[in-house]
């Protein structure tokens, strides 16, 4: 991954992460998006992992600057989704414990 590929990866990761943080806020019933850093980090890592490490087995959607675009989008969405699900499950457990 190089040049434009890095920029596209950052754009995908930040967009998916912010969408995840917004979904988390929506699921909590609040409008405020708090602490989106981890959601963005999850999306960036998921995107990088699928495109860079496992991209050899999923060459769909073409590539931009060495970035496998479709796997990068899917990886970002899945891992950010898992972050949101994990947070909600954890908060559900804490509420149940109280």
């Amino acid at each position, binding site marked *: 991954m190089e040049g434009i590929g890095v920029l596209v990866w950052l754009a995908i990761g930040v967009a998916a992460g912010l969408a995840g943080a917004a979904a988390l806020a929506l699921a909590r019933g609040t409008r405020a998006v708090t602490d989106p850093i981890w959601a963005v980090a999850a999306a960036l890592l998921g995107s990088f*992992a699928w495109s860079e490490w*496992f991209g050899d087995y999923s060459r769909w959607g073409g590539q931009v600057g060495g970035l496998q675009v479709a796997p990068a989008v899917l990886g970002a969405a899945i891992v950010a989704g*898992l972050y949101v699900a994990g947070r909600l499950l954890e908060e559900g457990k804490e509420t149940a414990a109280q």
Partner: protein
Amino acid sequence: MAERRTAAQAMVPEPVARLFTSPAFAWLWLVARVYLGYQWLEAGLHKVSDPAWMSGGTALKSFWERAVQVPAPPARPPITYDWYRDFLQFMLEREWYTWFAKLVAVGELAVGIALLLGAFTAIAAGAGAFMNLNFMLAGSASTNPVLFTLSVLVILAWRVAGYWGLDRALLRALGTPWEPGALVRRSWERWAGGIRPRPGQA
């Protein structure tokens, strides 16, 4: 049990403890685990389909033979520790590579599958780390230092490393030796109930 948890939590700062124990960070360990699993699976698949590993073990024999060589100074031998060189020499002389090569190939494959599925994640990561350690002791660096470090981190995150995998159910059912899960407790109670003397018996 509550005291043990408190003591363990007090040893590390709260954010670090959360990183290794909270389901909110299970995604991080999923990525690490899948990366590790993928590496082991690829290495294992390559070996189990190679006759040099699966029949005769000549691949492992040549690896051990290279590792135990001691070149004339100032060149340095691949193995730093004499005890480890003696250990490999011992196995070479007894031709243990014939079965040990199969063990390595199947072991790598099993570790890869377990890590990818998230089943017995910490045990699989421990087995992987042990193999990495042995490859490094035998003088082969390659990807081993990175895989070893990742494995140690996955072991530390054992509570949640398999949360997005089979361990989510397995840990609940089987538990740990110090805190048995529901299935183990039920089986134990049934077994203990079966040998308990009935009322009126001596």
